Structure formats: C-alpha cells, structure tokens
C-alpha cells in the first residue's frame, strides 16, 4: 500500500506553516547544493516547490516538508550536474600551458565540448577558492580533497585520526567557513 502524501492544498498549507528555522535551513541547504551550478538557492527552492505542488514529487504526509524540499533540491542539483556532457579528453604529453599544466584538448568537436571546458574551468576556480579558504585549516583541506575523491567517511576518519565527534566538528567548521565566505551562495 502506498504511503499517504500531501496534495497540493496540503502542501501549500505546510509551506505557509514553515518556521523561521525551517526557512533558514531551506535557504542554506539550497545555497550549498547550488555549488558549481548556474543557479542559486532561490532557483532550486522555487523548482522544488513547483514540483511538489504539481505532484511531480510527492511529500509523504509524515515527513517534515522542509526535509522533503531539501531532498528535492538535492535531487535537482544532482540532475543538473549529470547534465554536464561527459567527454573524453586528449591530454598532450609534451605541451603545457603558461602555468606548466598539461594542455588538454577535447576529443569532440561538438558544441558541448566548449561548455564542458567552461564548466571545468569554473569547477577548478571554485576548488582553488576553497583551498584558499581552508589554507590555514589542514583538517578541513584534507577532508575537502577526500570528498572530491569520494573517500568513504570511515576512511576519512581513520586517515585524520578523528572520532565521530571530531569528524562532525571539522564538518561544521567547513560549513561555517564556506557560509561566511560565500554569503550569497556559490552558484554565481
């Protein structure tokens, strides 16, 4: 038997009943998920609300709406990231750019290749910004690199000799630093 879900009018009422803390969580989660995307928290939240009201996504009745909307924003952000066209690259072994990095060329002449490179440049710029942000925080820097390599949490804890509390403390520090450094989001 399928679980009961909110219909459009119930979802609308639940939206109106969101508390200040709920709204702040929604906005901050949206900002985080907009990382590296050409959209902001408002875009992700607006779309999550539209999908909920239109019944594209159905919020289980027993689930807090704020948590549900954050899940929808996450899903949307993932889909937007997936849309980046996967292209093989040709890495030149003997040519380097001005900064000594190997020259990389697209293996495809499709229009998507240029977009892919713009996205990659954007991504690398963001990573450099995060590295600068965590320059004086070795634990945060190591954890960010581990995230980029998709290292499991347990492995990160073992590598950094952290227990669960220590791990959570570093995570919170990272989030607060990022939040303070990018108060208007990382999307643009």
């Amino acid at each position, binding site marked *: 038997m399928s679980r009961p879900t909110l219909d459009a009018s119930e979802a*609308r009422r639940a*939206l109106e009943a*969101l*508390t*200040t*803390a709920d*709204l*702040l*969580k*929604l*906005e*901050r*989660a949206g900002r*985080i*998920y907009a*990382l*590296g*995307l050409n959209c902001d928290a*408002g875009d992700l*939240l*607006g779309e999550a*609300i*539209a999908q909920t*009201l*239109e019944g594209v996504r159905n919020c289980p009745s027993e689930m807090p709406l704020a*948590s549900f909307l*954050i899940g929808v924003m*996450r899903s949307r*952000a*993932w889909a937007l*990231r*997936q849309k*980046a066209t*996967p*292209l*093989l*690259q040709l*890495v030149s072994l003997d040519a380097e750019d001005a900064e000594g990095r190997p020259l*990389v060329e697209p293996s495809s002449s499709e229009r998507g290749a240029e977009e*892919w490179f713009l*996205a*990659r440049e*954007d*991504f*690398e710029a*963001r990573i450099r910004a995060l590295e600068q942000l965590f320059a004086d925080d070795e634990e945060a820097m190591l954890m*960010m690199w581990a*995230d*980029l*390599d*998709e290292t499991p949490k347990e492995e990160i804890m073992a590598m950094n000799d952290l227990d669960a509390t220590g791990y*959570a403390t570093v*995570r*919170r520090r*990272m*989030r*607060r630093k*990022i939040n*303070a450094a990018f*108060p208007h989001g990382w999307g643009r």
Partner: protein
Amino acid sequence: MSGGEKPSLSLHRLADELVADLMQLSDAELLAEVKAEGLDPEKEAARVRATISAALTERGKARLKAARSALDAARAPAPGARRHFQIQDRRAVLARFANDDSKLRDRLTMAARNGEGITDEEVEAILNDLRDLGAIDDEGNPT
C-alpha cells in the same frame, strides 16, 4: 579526480556532507549561528518567504495559462472537423469556382446529366475542401 569525470559531480559529496551537518543543528543552534554571523534571522527568513511566494505566484500564472490554452483548444475545431459554411448562396460560389476548374465542372455536369443533382452536404463538403486547400476564404471568395 581523473580528467574525464564530470567536473561538478565530485562537489556533490562535499555538498551532501555540509547539508548533513546543517540538518543536525537544532532550531536554537541555527538561529544562534545566523545571529553570530551578524544577520537577523527574521529578515533572512522573510527573504525565503518572498521566494516561496514568488514560486506560488509563478505556479498560479502557469496554471492560468494552461487553463486558457485548454479552453482555446476546446473552442477551436478539431483538425479535420468540418465547419459549417457561413455563406448564403453556396451553389453560386461553387458554380463560380467550377468555371476555373475543369474537373469540378465535369463532376457537376455529370451529376446534372444523371438527374441526381448535387446535395447540400456535397456542396458543403466541396467548399470545405476548397477552403482547407486555401482556394477560397470563409466567405467563398477566391484567395
């Protein structure tokens, strides 16, 4: 990260971890954190409420537009549907048109010789075909 990966996908893991931390905060902790940043939680929340209101308004507009389109579609004749010709003398229009169309003229002559004439339904159908082909307008005038 290897060269061929989608650049921004690897950021998703970091984002997930940061949101997980955010979700662990109690309401009081979150409000305290926002205040510690020098921000007014109520003002910040009001901004989000405005975003939600805008989304609701946008949805309302989209629904209205969809309803209007559906209404227009319901009013419009279905493709291939025969509209009733709004002209008084259908047969005169047909005869005038037949002067320039030998096949049509032959058809009308044959029907007359057989003593069958041509029914009003046939006249209507031929005029509709001519209009659909763009040969005449709604008033039966050559286009």
